[in-house]
């Protein structure tokens, strides 16, 4: 380990991160995190979304200036102010999305990453260098293949080759396997482990998948809420320990004055729905779930397991490949007529992207559900703007939307007020079915508890509520029943009373006893 392989000039340094702290306004995203990366080690950083993993990476790589903390390479402190400096010190970053140029060949992509001093490229020479470089690597990519023709796993290998070719000996991989199939992921991570074992590389793997940590990493650091909550040798920790660290044990089961209602008839049924994501890959695979009147069904899951696509299906923003959605026992075609008749409302995340028009006024945005309804229309087709505005004033007051006038453009409002605008629009009508997706992200404590009590109130009135949340505490507080969604399937279901954070965490992290063997036999 002390002697690097002869073919490579660069040594693998000892990397130490000491007391890294980063604050965004009132949010402490990273709170004094320290990590020690021995040369040739494979170190996993485990945490939920928002735990601070990416912030830590960005501080190390010079994308962010940390508020406090030091980076030591072989014991020498380095101030890294921009990504270029980080690269110059041999720190390389592989993102979850690809940074290759799709229309160029693998060889061209390798060359293009370099900072050339000369304006011309000596292709014969470059080619010889790449080939001799690749001979020393445990894995190979067809150099003349265009990147577009490579499978995702091949592309990820090429990204890694590129980093190595550029002479980077410490590689940080930010959820590199999220775009790969399990067997591709195993292959890529296995090759990286071989390289670390040979002492040619140190790897930091950012992930939320236990399986990868267990199978490949030697050391693990667990972050939660920006803090380092645990670290150690992977071999000495079991999955339950990791889940406990990652999701927290001390969850408060505070119920916001929920009345003991008996859940009624099935109000929203998703029946074997299959849908594709934007890359035309299966996002939800024959997924079924049922929400009954007076019930909150919480859907737990790590982002990117099909929740967004399912919400879009329910919102009418995405097509259904197979299966059916039913509301109040009839086929739901997601039309305006049915939304109104059955009182279907949605609180989606990122309202400016998903449910509002930036360039329209607050009053107009508040009336998307009812501008063509009853008292708001005269002579059959004319919108009564004065009525809309009066209605908007009432809502602005009731939901405490901070806007100078009802006529201000929506995008002049702050994020929290945009969220309140949507909340006012969606909850002020007759709500029978409510689909909520991370409704409290980005809101402060009081706004969060207000939304929570609104949701509980709607439930007590007999509404059926489907709540998607990446925040387990929120689900445990609100839901009557919790299901876990993973890779487009419902993999676990439990009533709230019997809910156990560690078990839910295991299923969220991709634990699936009956599939584990299948993967092993494929690999």
């Amino acid at each position, binding site marked *: 380990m002390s002697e690097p392989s002869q073919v490579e000039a660069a040594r693998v340094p000892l990397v130490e991160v000491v007391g890294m702290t980063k604050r965004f306004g009132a949010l402490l995203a990273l709170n004094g995190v320290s990590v020690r990366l021995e040369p040739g080690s494979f170190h996993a950083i485990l945490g939920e979304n928002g735990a601070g993993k990416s912030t830590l990476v960005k501080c190390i790589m010079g994308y962010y200036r940390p508020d406090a903390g030091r980076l030591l390479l072989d014991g020498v402190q380095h101030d890294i102010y921009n990504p270029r400096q980080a690269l110059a010190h041999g720190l390389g970053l592989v993102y979850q999305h690809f940074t290759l140029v799709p229309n160029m060949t693998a060889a061209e992509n390798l060359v293009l990453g370099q900072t050339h001093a000369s304006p011309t490229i000596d292709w014969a020479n470059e080619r010889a260098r790449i080939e001799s470089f690749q001979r020393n690597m445990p894995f190979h990519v067809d150099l003349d293949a265009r990147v577009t023709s490579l499978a995702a796993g091949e592309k990820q290998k090429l990204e890694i080759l590129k980093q190595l070719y550029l002479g980077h000996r410490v590689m940080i991989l930010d959820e590199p396997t999220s775009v790969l199939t399990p067997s591709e992921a195993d292959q890529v991570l296995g090759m990286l482990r071989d390289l670390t074992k040979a002492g040619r590389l140190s790897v930091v793997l950012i992930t939320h998948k236990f399986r990868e940590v267990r199978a490949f990493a030697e050391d693990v650091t667990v972050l939660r809420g920006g803090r380092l909550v645990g670290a150690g040798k992977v071999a000495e920790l079991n999955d339950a320990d990791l889940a406990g660290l990652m999701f927290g044990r001390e969850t408060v089961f505070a119920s916001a004055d929920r009345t003991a209602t008996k859940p009624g008839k099935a109000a929203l049924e998703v029946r074997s729905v299959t849908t594709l994501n934007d890359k035309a890959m299966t996002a939800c695979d024959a997924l079924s779930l049922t929400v009954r009147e007076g019930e909150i069904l919480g859907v737990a899951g790590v982002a990117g397991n099909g929740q967004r696509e399912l919400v879009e299906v329910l*919102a*009418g*923003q995405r097509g259904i490949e197979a299966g059916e959605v039913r509301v109040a026992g009839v086929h739901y075609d*997601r*039309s*305006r*007529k*049915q*939304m*109104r008749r059955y009182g279907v409302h*949605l609180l*989606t995340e990122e309202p400016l*992207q*998903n*449910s*509002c*028009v*930036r*360039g*329209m006024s607050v009053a*107009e945005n508040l009336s*998307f*559900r009812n*501008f*063509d309804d009853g008292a708001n*229309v005269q002579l059959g*087709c*004319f*919108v009564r*703007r004065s009525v809309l505005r009066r209605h908007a004033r009432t809502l602005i007051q009731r939901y405490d939307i*901070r*806007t*100078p*006038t009802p006529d*201000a*453009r929506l995008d*002049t*409002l*702050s994020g929290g007020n945009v969220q309140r605008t949507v909340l006012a629009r969606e909850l002020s009508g007759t709500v029978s079915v409510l689909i909520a997706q991370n409704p409290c992200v980005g809101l402060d404590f009081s706004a969060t508890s207000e939304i929570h009590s609104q949701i509980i109130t709607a439930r007590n009135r007999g509404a059926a509520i489907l709540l998607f949340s990446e925040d387990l505490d929120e689900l445990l507080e609100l839901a009557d029943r919790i299901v876990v969604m993973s890779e487009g399937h419902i993999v676990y279901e439990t009533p709230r009373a019997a809910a156990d954070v560690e078990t839910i965490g295991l299923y969220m992290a991709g634990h699936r006893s009956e599939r584990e063997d299948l993967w092993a036999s494929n690999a």
Partner: protein
Amino acid sequence: MIGAAVWRGPEAAVLTVGAVLVALLAFGIFVAFTGLDPFAVYKVLYLGAFGSRFSIETTLTLAAPIMLTALCVVIPARAGLLIIGGEGALVLGGLGSVLAGVALNGAPASLATPLILLAGAAAGAIWIAIPAALRQFRGVNETISTLLFNYIAIALLNHLVSGPIRDYGQPLKPTSWPIPSAFMIGTIPGLSVHWGLVYGVAACLVAFVVLRQTTFGFALSILGGNLRAAQMAGLPVAALALTAAALGGAAAGLAGAVEVVAVHGAASISLVVGYGYAGILVAFVARQNPLAVVLAALLVGGISASGGLLQRRFGMPDAASTVLEGCIFLAVLGSNSLYGRLRFLQSRSAEVK
């Protein structure tokens, strides 16, 4: 692109007027480089456009079809579609009106003329609805397809007038069968400007009211502002987009029909004089506001009307007025980047968080 170009009250007016002034300055420099006195050129430009009764009448006559073709951009733009197929829709409108006119031979004019205009509008509506449907259901870029549809329309016109519907009594220029002269519409009393001007202004007023005051217009604004919000509100997205495109196409088709029943009496390559493209320019100068379209069309009509005079008086190339129009187009598009940047234009309320 469209989103940035919609009307936003006084700020838009100030920016547009400023942009036109910048364009006039740029064109003045261009003129000075050709060795002419810019002030003399602008004076003649003014005289040619608005200086006499005759020049005003010419300006109004030229502005009329441009108002209608501008609506072919403005109405679909409200639904988020960037349609530049006004030229083709105008041609189709002309062809449709000729066929209707010939078919209705012998009918009373009071019945036939409205039907001819309707046929032209319908032809234009269908013509623009096709690329909108391709966009909606197959994801074909509507801007490129409507541009290409223009060439198809012109080729179709050339084919028909040089064979299937050719009037062989016109040996010099391939021309379609004429419509019966009884169906021709005359001029507005007291002006030597045909009724097309009234149709154009009326269409702009109707479009303004429909887009601003009706539930349909409100739904279009949601769709054009954010497709996902429209879907979430359960709006019939495809129907709205197709209807908006068809209405725009109908306006341009009507322009073609008016050219036939008020000017040419038949369809020929004379329909293809760039009204469709001028409409794009006008729609952007008017920032997709139908009322502003009327004013912008008068401006562009005036520039076109004075083109001949500039040519005769100064020996300027006939492309000179096109250069001026191009300067205006670029300046107006460029001015979009100044939205919200000029401190003195910001209303105080908009700054409060």
